[in-house]
């Protein structure tokens, strides 16, 4: 009895609860399942068909991803003899976990965060740049030509989109003059949403996220007719399931950051007050932030039904030649905005 109580206490201890349940591991996993299901369903609707259905007709096939996940879980894991075993095995797992890690720095309300820190934007932005390296590692360790090509593509793209994303984050941070998410959101509550303050930075970051998480039309690393599954070609069973999840997890995390920086975070939450601390400062803001990020993710996922995919050189040209310049331009906009806010504040 004592052990269970201690365990529950441990789980309810805010940092652990935050990382394991909401919005950490379990919440993200459930979200992943819903997101991929929604992707297939929406694509089906546009493509004059149903999408997954028969598995649970009453729930419109919502259990489909559970079945796929369980199938992956119980499938054999094959490690090719020529593969470099340790990195091959560790890369997708580490990429999945590290892809989720920026959540430690992302607050869901002024009172709900795992670790209080002043430089949370910096840390979150820094942590998001780790998983691509592991993707490249996975491609290299697989010892498969398609994987190597996929890894090489990822390495080219990484440089392009990271520059765009980081500069657009830098420019909005410049406008807020703070590296703390909480303060940034509070500032947005006072003035207006970041997307209105600096729309150019928001646009550049959105495109950067699409590129980073290989959404269409930038699904180049895993372009099927060319490089099979890119870096993940040799993975099987649950290892492949993890690989497939990486981009979705990263998309959700990026969208959380975007929500906090540009979409006002938990902005209208201050209007609701029930008196209960848990509801007012955890549930409602948390739900608002998560909803914004999910809607954004759904929009990104929807692009699959409308676009084809670019060639790698076209994507790189767009990344460096156009969106990088736009991101730099957003710095100028931010300086202007800062001047205006500075006068007002």
């Amino acid at each position: 009895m004592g052990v269970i109580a201690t365990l529950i206490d441990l789980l309810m201890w805010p940092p652990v609860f935050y990382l394991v349940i909401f919005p950490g591991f379990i919440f993200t996993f459930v979200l992943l399942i819903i997101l991929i299901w929604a992707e297939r369903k929406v694509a089906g609707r546009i493509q004059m068909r149903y999408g997954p259905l028969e598995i649970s007709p009453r729930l419109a096939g919502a259990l489909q991803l559970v079945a796929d996940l369980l199938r992956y879980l119980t499938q054999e894991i094959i490690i090719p003899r020529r593969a470099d075993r340790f990195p091959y095995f560790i890369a997708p797992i580490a990429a999945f976990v590290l892809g989720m890690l920026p959540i430690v720095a992302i607050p869901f309300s002024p009172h709900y965060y795992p670790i209080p820190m002043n430089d949370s934007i910096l840390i979150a932005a820094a942590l998001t740049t780790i998983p691509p390296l592991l993707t490249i590692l996975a491609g290299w360790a697989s010892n498969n030509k398609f994987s190597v090509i996929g890894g090489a593509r990822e390495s080219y793209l990484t440089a392009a989109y990271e520059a765009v994303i980081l500069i657009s984050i830098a420019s909005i941070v410049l406008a807020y003059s703070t590296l703390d998410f909480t303060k940034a959101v509070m500032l947005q509550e006072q003035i207006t949403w970041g997307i209105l303050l600096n729309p150019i930075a928001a646009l550049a970051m959105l495109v950067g996220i699409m590129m980073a998480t290989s959404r269409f039309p930038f699904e180049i690393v895993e372009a099927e007719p060319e490089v099979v599954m890119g870096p993940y070609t040799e993975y099987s069973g649950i290892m492949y399931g993890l690989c497939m999840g990486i981009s979705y997890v990263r998309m959700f995390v990026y969208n959380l950051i975007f929500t906090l920086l540009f979409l006002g975070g938990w902005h209208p939450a201050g209007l609701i007050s029930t008196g209960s601390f848990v509801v007012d400062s955890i549930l409602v803001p948390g739900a608002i932030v998560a909803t914004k990020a999910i809607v954004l993710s759904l929009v990104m996922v929807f692009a699959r039904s409308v676009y084809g995919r670019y060639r790698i050189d076209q994507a790189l040209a767009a990344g460096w030649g156009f969106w990088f310049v736009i991101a730099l331009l957003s710095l100028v906009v931010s300086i202007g905005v800062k001047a205006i806010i500075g006068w007002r504040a």
Partner: protein
Amino acid sequence: MESLAKPIKKIVDWATSFSLWPVHLMTACCGCELAVTYAPRLDTERLGSLPFTHARNTNTVIIEGAVTKKMARALKVTYEQMPHPKFVIGMGACAIDGGLFYNSYNLVKPWKVVPINNYIPGCPPRPEALTQAVYALQKEIREKELASYKFLGFLSRRGKKEKESS
């Protein structure tokens, strides 16, 4: 342990049966009808069957008709690359006994290359028939525990029986 194994096995069979992803291996002309099977009119994706790219991350081979000697090697490699549990559907008369191309010197009977779970007659079979084959395979997996008898095999009665007999 037996009581615990049963629900687990049931879940595994259920999950596998609703997640039969055929690998993209076109062996002959029935590939046209395979493409139609996953297109809007029949949409076999509603059965949870999604045609996917590579042998490593799929679990079903659909043999579309005739298998030539050249293709038989590719078929064998693809099947061996695939992780357990894996299933094979033989589509068309050619996959059964050569079909229209009986006596051809360049054809191999697919069942001499890989074990086949379900056969579909017809030349080419209508896409409805392929959908039905997927459906039949799902039922067979659930009823005969085709997916779970290897996984957790040591817990099950079937695994014990195999041990005793050997």
